[in-house]
């Protein structure tokens, strides 16, 4: 008997509006799934990621999480979305305030190191860093959360191929969780996942094993 899905979208849709849209979508993901969502601009990738992150609610259909309650989720945005008024370290610590300060510092610093940011960068403000470094810090913030469900929107957008590959290698989620990556131009990000989902305006979404979906997507583009 197949394991119950961790999350199931049943006809979940978002009506068109200034903050995006998503055509009705059925999708089931089991614990441990690693999914890449791709498609052209305006196809609803970010809207789907925000639905999974709990930042938006479907205007039609539903999203069911196993056990009736969504697990802790973390999302890194296309833009780094760091607070300019805070240092890199404080940005990472923002969501760790429930922990004792020392434990939060240790976890925050470890996350920054894991994405290749040095101790000397910790006290810098986001505007003092390159785009790639800010992106790394945004990813470190999501990784430091320890959330089992991790969602990354366009983690490699705007980066040179070498940095994009390095950043792609940093994305991970616990085995019992979920890794969802959205990208219009996935490139090296295909290697991280085992499932692919193509969203196209006016056409049904296509979900399948990575290699099948990748081949189809690459013939389309």
């Amino acid at each position: 008997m197949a394991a119950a899905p961790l999350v199931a979208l049943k006809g979940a849709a978002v009506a068109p509006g200034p903050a995006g849209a998503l055509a009705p979508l059925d999708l089931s993901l089991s614990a441990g799934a690693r999914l890449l969502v791709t498609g052209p601009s305006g196809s609803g990738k970010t809207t789907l990621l925000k639905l999974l992150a709990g930042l938006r609610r479907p205007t039609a259909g539903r999203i069911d999480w196993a056990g009736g309650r969504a697990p802790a989720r973390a999302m890194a945005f296309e833009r780094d979305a760091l607070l300019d008024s805070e240092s890199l370290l404080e940005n990472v610590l923002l969501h760790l305030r429930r922990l004792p300060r020392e434990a939060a510092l240790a976890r925050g610093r470890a996350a920054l190191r894991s994405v290749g940011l040095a101790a000397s960068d910790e006290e810098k403000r986001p505007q003092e860093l390159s785009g790639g470094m800010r992106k790394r810090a945004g990813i470190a913030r999501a990784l430091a959360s320890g959330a089992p469900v991790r969602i990354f929107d366009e983690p490699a957008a705007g980066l040179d191929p070498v940095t994009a590959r390095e950043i792609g290698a940093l994305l991970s989620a616990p085995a019992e969780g979920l890794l969802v990556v959205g990208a219009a131009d996935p490139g090296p990000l295909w290697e991280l996942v085992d499932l692919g989902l193509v969203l196209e305006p006016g056409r049904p979404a296509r979900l399948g094993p990575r290699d099948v979906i990748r081949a189809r997507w690459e013939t389309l583009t």
Partner: protein
Amino acid sequence: MTDRALVAAGRAVGRPLVGWLRAAGALALLAGRSATALGSLDGRELARILAWDGAQSLGLVAITAALAGALVVVQTGFFIRQLGVLGLLGWGAGYASLREVCPLLVALVYAGRVGAARAAEVAALRAGEQLPALEALGVDSVRALLAPRLWGMAASVLLLTAFGDVVALAAAALAARGWLGLPVLEFWRSMRRSLGPRDAALGLEKSAAFGLAIALSALRAGLAAPANGRGVGQAARAAVVHAIGWILLLDVLLTGGM
């Protein structure tokens, strides 16, 4: 009246009404959530807001209050001299400054200088996805970012008004000395004879209400603006317009109630 006309009339009335109710509900929600966050505010963030929004407004408030205090004396001085009641000048200038002029002018200046900037900042935080990013990480953005701004702004207006009161009274005393030749000590005595702490307290009560109105207007404008570059400008403009409207309305209501 045809059915179509009835529907059109219903829409004409209903849409603005629904919009207004939504805005009022969102404002009440923001105020309520900020109030519940009061006991666990991030002290560092609050101190930063007080320093940025309060301390950096001291110069502008000092100039505004000094000119307002002097203006009260200059405006009333002619009649005071004509009527030969120089002994009432301290009372008149103090009464007007403490109860009305200072709270009102400080609030208006603050709404233009800080309210607009904070609204633009919140709109930019939405446009840059910083606020959704916090929510996506399970951080309550009201508690972490908005409540410290709300209470920091409200406290700043109150403290700046108290500071403005002192500056306005000093400027009024100096203007009375220079314009009408009334010794500073005489001005001070006239003020002490007729005014008490209650007069200052009533002015500060007003400024507390104005401060909350400015802060709520600013945060709401920032949150309601479109999450893009144009939204930042729209938020700043809306914050100032709404804050001025609320300040004037509250002034009438509170003055009537005093």
